[in-house]
């Protein structure tokens, strides 16, 4: 099931300057911490002039679409999915 969410979240991230890689490692939402095992896609788009970074990440059982608004550096959880049909 795919569920649209719009919730602020806390994250643990690693930035590797040699590879210029930003890697989300842990995600805390509604009091629960999820280990991020895979970062499968990172894309960007503009909302007006504001650049949005979208990370499609997965724990062992869940998918999370998380975005970073570069105008205020706020992270938002936009979507979750367990990969099962509705």
């Amino acid at each position: 099931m795919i569920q649209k969410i719009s919730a602020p979240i806390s994250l643990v991230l690693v930035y590797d300057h040699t590879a210029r890689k930003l890697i989300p490692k842990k995600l805390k939402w509604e009091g629960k911490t999820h280990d991020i095992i895979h970062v499968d896609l990172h894309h960007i788009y503009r909302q007006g002039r504001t650049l949005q970074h979208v990370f499609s990440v997965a724990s062992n059982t869940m998918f999370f679409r998380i975005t970073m608004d570069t105008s205020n550096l706020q992270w938002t959880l936009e979507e979750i999915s367990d990969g099962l049909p509705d």
Partner: protein
Amino acid sequence: MDCLTNLPFNKKPPTKIHVDLNSCFASIEQQANRHLRNKPVAVAAYNSPNGCILAASYEAKALGIKTGTRVQDGMVLCPGLIVMSPDAAKYKYIHSRFRQLFSTYSHKVTPKSIDEFIIDLEGCPSYKRGMHTVALEMRKRIKDEIGDSLRVNIGIATNNFLAKTAASLHKPEGMDEINEVNHIEIFKSLNLKDLCGIDKGNASRLNSSGIFSVLDLYEASSDKLKRAFRSIMGHHWFYKMRGWEVEDIEFDRKSYGNSYALPLPLSTVDELAPLLTKLTQKAGQRLRKAGYKCQGIYIAISYRDFDYWHVSVTTEKALFDSRDIYKELYRLLCHSPSKKPVRTLAISCFNLSPYDIKQGELFEDIDEKAKLVEAIDGINERWGNFVLTPGRMIGTEQLMPERIPFGASKEIEEFHNSEDELRYESVEV
């Protein structure tokens, strides 16, 4: 006698690589969400029973779900089908990454659609490494640098058409070359309708001229093909089948248009006016951004009973303000003969001329109007589309999401320009 009966197959070594991302939208969704991989996934224009499926994953295709299948029919074929809404920004971004990657091999990279590219290596240093070596490296880099679950078909030939044909021979992840040596054998293995551009109608025309196979098509003279296709297209087919290029022609932009397939069966002018406003705003903004004004407008309506009505007019003065374009379109809409439930509403602006040449008006201050339009466009560009809109658009906020054009290279070019600035800001993950 037809002097083009015995033109030989192009003997030049192939320099063109066609790359085609399989099941594009569905593959990208499976790349983003690994929990969808190896499952039947469909990306549909609308996640409603009548929604049209735009792309099906391999797993869904294996169950008979194709592009164009209705969601409700897809659910019958596969009750566990996972139906997703399209994410235009994501697909554009992947397209842009493909383009960037291919640009490291050649300066002649031509997008043929959102999921297809032609890379011409002629005269490029990478050509010396061998076409197959380069093609395989491209495939590996796509997996390493863009997405490990993305699969591409690759075709190699002397022209765009045969490169595309080669890419379709073995799916998924095939790589084939059509050349002077193997073309007859490959043509023998294909049906007419396997060729891009030969639909039921063209196949029927060819059949009536005694052409029943791809080999017949290849062996037919230019004159015979012109008669069969009843146009200059026959002449083009004569060259295409022999590996000569006829598609490297750039056409000027002739029009800017937008269309919308209505999820609800609206029928009155009052009901359609907000949608017409939004379509006009979209097309008008694109028109001005590209530096044009127009002196012709077109509106088309297809009804739910498959009836169709359309009309175009040339306007007295050149239009650039969406409000003026809307007024003309609204006038046409009011004259539509039927007030039946509408399936698709489409508009277009044509007779384009450069925006910067403004002819003065006796009763209107054009400069003032232009400044206002530029200011509105500037605000919308700064804060996002439709932050400032006509009041008539109220209620359409959730309607008409951004769509990805299929096979329309002019529209693809439009978003290349907007993506160019993004590439330098990307952080790798």
